[in-house]
Structure formats: structure tokens, C-alpha cells
């Protein structure tokens, strides 16, 4: 029984991370799966969302911080919305010069913006506390729930150890519920958008942009809308991440964790299919976390193990592209002929 609580708590932790990735993957699905926009700067929007939310909700700078600005102590929901808005604005700025050009330009521009955002986060210490990152980011309702759990434990001495362990991590259970609610709401929105006439137009753009333009659709406007909506969802993912991790730094948003994993999740799960995007994030995060346990038994150093796991994920992507390009769950809507 003592293992039971530990395993269950690990599953909760796992599901929070995978669910956060699910949000990012949904955002990418609207860009890539629906419209065919090749955004490989997911990490940039993810980081921007996390920092925006942390600065809006977090505490004022401490004496030991290099930061002199931010920390407005606003409610969590303001941080969440602020993160989405800032990401949407940046998406407009990046979309205008690139969306009229070939897909390659958007790819290069998004990877460039992601790297530039990481440079700003590392260099503008007055705002971001530089490489030290933002700390003590508040978690919503933490005091109420965690305090309540503590009070319950104090009031009921002699609880079995496993029950005690589960109640101590009550906050994680709450956060998992929060992540799943956000994920579900976003899923409904993205799914609804996909079924609407708007969704049919963007899928037509994916299949043949010239033909769609010929039918009188302003494809640039639709692509820009897609980029913006996707980026806003990614910003929400960043906010959700920041308030659970409570600590973020530029290193949290390196291209592998911030962009590449999410791409593999979407491609493996099934581009164009929202359930596939979410499924992919759980499967790939499962592989990623599972191989961590596995490589402990390999006669390699920790850094070598990490490299090996990244090679494995990269191979997984190539294998899917070669042998099952539609992913586990293919798009539910029929391809336009």
C-alpha cells in the first residue's frame, strides 16, 4: 500500500505535465494540422506566455533579484488571459512579414523569434531576472487547498501512511483538474472552430492555397488568424506551466522541450486531429519519461543517457514520417480532393 500513494502521485505529476503539453499540442494542431503553418518556434510562445503570466501574477521584485519591474500580484486568470494576448500580438508581428511567403520563411522566422525571445529573457534582467529566472510564482488557490489539507491531517492524527501521502499532495490533484478543464475547454473551442466554415477554409488552404485564394478567400487573413489563435493557446500552455513549476528560467524553454517534443507529439498522435494531438502528448511524454527509468540500467552516464533518449525521439519522428505519416489517429475530416 505504501507504493500505491507514491505511484498515484507520480501519475498525477505525469498527467499534469502531459496535459500541459496537450495544450501546446492543440495550439500547434490549429496551426499545422488545420492550416499547414510550419511554426517551429513553439518554445518562443510557450516562454512568452509563461513569463507574461508570472510577471502579472507574481510578487514584486525581492531585494536579491536583479529584476526591478513586474510582479503585480494580479489574479491567476488575469495572467492566463494576459499570456494569451501577448502571444497573440507577437504572432501578428511575426506573421505579417512571413505569411505571404513560402512555408520555409515562416519556419525560419519562427525559429528565429524563439531564439530571440530566449536571448531577451536572458539579457533583460530588469524584467526577467536574467538567467536566474523568475521564482516564487504563485499557484492559484495554493494556500486554501494546501492549507486545508494540512489542517485536515493535523486534525486527524493516525491516518494510514498512504492516505496521509495522498492528502499531502491534494494540491497536485487540484492542479491536474485545472489542467484537464483548461485542456477540455480549449479542445471544445478548437474542435468547434474546425467544424465551422472557418475550419473548412483553413483546411482548404492547407490542401491548396492558390485554389482557395482563387475562390475569393483572403488566405493571408485566415493564416494570420490561425497563427494568432494557435499562439494564444500556446501562451495559455505557458501560463499553466509557470504556475505549476513556480520557477521558470530561459533554460526551461530550450528548443527540444519547448518545440521539438511538441512536434513529435502532434505528428505521432495525428496532425489535424485534436484527440490525436492530446493522445500524442501523453504517449510521447510517456516514452520520454519511461526511457528515463530505462536508461538508469544502461552502462552510460546521465548526459549520455539524455542524448540517447533525444536520439530515440528523433528516430521516432523519422519512423512516423516514413511509415505512418498520418499518425495514430488520422484526421477525421476527409481530405479535400
Amino acid at each position, binding site marked *: 500500500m505504501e507504493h500505491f500513494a507514491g505511484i498515484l502521485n507520480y501519475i498525477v505529476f505525469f498527467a499534469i505535465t502531459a496535459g500541459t503539453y496537450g495544450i501546446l499540442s492543440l495550439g500547434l494542431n490549429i496551426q499545422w494540422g488545420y492550416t499547414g503553418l*510550419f511554426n517551429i518556434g513553439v518554445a518562443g510562445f510557450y516562454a512568452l506566455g509563461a513569463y507574461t503570466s508570472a510577471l502579472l501574477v507574481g510578487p514584486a521584485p525581492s531585494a536579491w533579484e536583479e529584476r526591478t519591474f513586474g510582479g503585480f500580484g494580479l489574479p491567476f486568470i488575469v495572467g492566463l488571459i494576459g499570456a494569451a494576448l501577448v502571444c497573440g500580438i507577437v504572432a501578428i508581428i511575426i506573421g505579417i512579414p512571413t505569411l505571404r511567403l513560402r*512555408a520555409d520563411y515562416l*519556419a525560419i522566422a519562427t525559429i528565429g523569434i524563439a531564439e530571440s525571445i530566449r536571448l531577451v529573457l536572458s539579457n533583460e534582467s530588469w524584467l526577467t531576472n536574467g538567467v536566474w529566472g523568475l521564482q516564487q510564482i504563485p499557484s492559484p488557490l495554493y494556500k486554501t487547498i494546501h492549507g486545508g489539507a494540512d489542517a485536515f491531517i493535523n486534525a486527524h492524527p493516525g491516518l494510514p501512511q498512504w492516505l496521509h501521502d495522498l492528502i499531502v499532495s491534494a494540491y497536485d490533484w487540484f492542479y491536474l483538474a485545472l489542467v484537464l478543464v483548461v485542456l477540455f475547454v480549449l479542445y471544445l473551442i478548437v474542435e468547434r472552430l474546425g467544424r465551422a466554415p472557418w475550419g473548412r477554409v483553413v483546411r482548404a488552404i492547407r490542401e491548396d492555397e492558390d485554389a482557395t485564394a482563387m475562390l475569393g478567400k483572403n488566405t493571408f487573413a485566415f493564416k494570420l488568424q490561425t497563427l494568432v489563435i494557435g499562439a494564444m493557446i500556446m501562451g495559455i500552455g505557458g501560463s499553466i506551466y509557470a504556475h505549476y513549476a513556480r520557477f521558470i528560467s530561459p533554460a526551461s524553454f530550450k528548443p527540444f522541450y519547448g518545440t521539438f517534443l511538441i512536434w513529435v507529439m502532434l505528428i505521432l498522435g495525428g496532425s489535424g486531429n485534436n484527440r490525436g494531438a492530446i493522445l500524442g502528448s501523453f504517449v510521447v511524454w510517456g516514452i520520454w519519461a519511461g526511457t528515463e527509468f530505462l536508461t538508469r540500467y544502461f552502462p552510460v552516464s546521465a548526459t*549520455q543517457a539524455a542524448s540517447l533518449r533525444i536520439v530515440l525521439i528523433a528516430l521516432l519522428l523519422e519512423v512516423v514520417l516514413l511509415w505512418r505519416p498520418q499518425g495514430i489517429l488520422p484526421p477525421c475530416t476527409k481530405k479535400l480532393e
Partner: protein
Amino acid sequence: MSAITQIPQLLVYGIVSGSILALGGIGVSLTYSILGFSNFAHGDIMALGAYIGLGLLGLFTAVGLADTPLGPLSFGPGFILAMVLAAGLTAAAMIIIDRLLFRKLRHAGPIILMMASIGLALGLRNVIQFFWGPQPHYYIARIQVAVPIPGIDARIKSDEVFIIVLAIVLVAGVHAFLRYTKMGKAMRAMADNAALARVTGINTDRVIAWTWVIGGGLAAVAGILAGVENKFITPQLGWQMLLSIFAGVILGGIGNPYGAIIGCVIIGISEEVSTAFISTGYKPAVAFVIMILMLLVRPTGILGRKA
């Protein structure tokens, strides 16, 4: 030292780094025009070449191959041989990777190829990191004194002169190859119109193989020269240069190898000169900002044709 007086020296650094970027840029440009996709693995192919060179250098040193410095340079004939062999091995590796991966995805279109190249980039980088570790490896331990350049207020090392001269020789070689050989003509034909090239009887498989030989070989040389200039290499070497190379290629006109050379040299110089005015921390963003401005003003680049 004021910002203005630093500029001659920064120009020298910029020309050196621009020469290295240009050797990478030629490959990116050829892959784009002949295979039709932006190869995000190109930076890591440069790193692969640099590490193959490192391995060969270690081997040569172990067997006692002459490594007495050549004249004023800080490296010897063993190093030159390692560079030539590394270029050949990297080219061979790219032909194999093309057979296993890119060739099977060519029907799927440019974006899928681009995605596969991103996977390849991470794969290569981490294979390198698995074998050599994330720490820097020193290429050349000898310290070299920079000598004053007559006429201007700047200094240059003989290794840097070697980098610039070798880059010019290789660029001239590529030019001669594209201009005067049958294969070069076939490559240009395929870049113009792949379908038309195929009907006229051009062996497109051979053209593609040659594209990887030139792109991969030059990438390896560029990676090794980056090691010469910085004295050390890390697995991140190529990734760090990739954005600058892409910016240079777009600036010069994507798909035009001559444009790529010009664009990469401009990016190299701009990055170095920018450090006189803005924080060095932002050096990698300079290339990106130039690229975005170019896309806004003239998306076809300096030498690009209308799409």
C-alpha cells in the same frame, strides 16, 4: 576604446566568420534549389564534419603523423589531411542519410522534408554528444599572435588569413564546377526546373548525390574552420551558426549560391560590428533582425529572382 575605433578590427572578425558562414550557406542554398527544402540539419552536418575531423586528428596524432606547424600557421599537414578526409566522410554520410531518409520522403513535399531535417538535426547533435560529450574539445592548443595589418588599425592571425583564403579558393572551385562542368550544368538545370531536367535525360539521382557531396563536404570544412577560429568545438557549434546561415541565404536570395555567399559575408560582418554598439548577448539576434527587415523590404533577397 570607443565604438568607432573598434570597427576595423570587428570588420576583420566579421570577414573571417562570414567566410565560414558562406561555406555553410552554399550547401543550404544548393539543397534548397535542387532538393527543394530548407535543410535544418545543415548546421549539425557542419558539427558532424568538425567532430569527424577531431577524431581523425586524434588518430593522426596517435600514430605520429607529422604535425609540425606549416609556416606561420598553428597546425600541420596532419590537420589538412584530417580536414580533407572529414569532408569526404561527411559527404559520404550525407549520401547514405539521403538514401535512408530524404529520398523516401521526396514525394511527401518540402515541409515534410524540412521536418525530417529537424529530426535529423537533433539526432546528429545528440549522437555527437553521446560520443564526445557536451564539453568543449580543443582543436588546436597552440597560441597564435595576431599581427597588425598594414594601413588599418586592426590585427589578424595567420590562421584567419588561411580561413579567408581557403574560403575564397573553395568558392571559386564551386563556381568553376557549376559553370564549366557537365554535372554543374545539370545541377543548375535541375535547380531551374527538376521535371524538365528529368525529361531531358539528366540523371537526377546523380545530381542529388553531387549536391550532398558539395554541400556536405563544404559543411565539414566550415565546421572545422569554425573550430580553428574558436580553438574549440562543442556539439552546439552548428546549431549556433544555423540561424546566421539561413539569414545570409535569405538575404542573398534563397536558392542562389552566389547570393548565399554575399549574404553570409554581410551577416558575418554585421554580427561582429554590432557588438560595438549593442550587448554581445544579442549577437545571435542581429542576423534574425536583418533577415526580417529583408523579408519586409525585398523578400527575394539581393540576387533572388521573382518567385
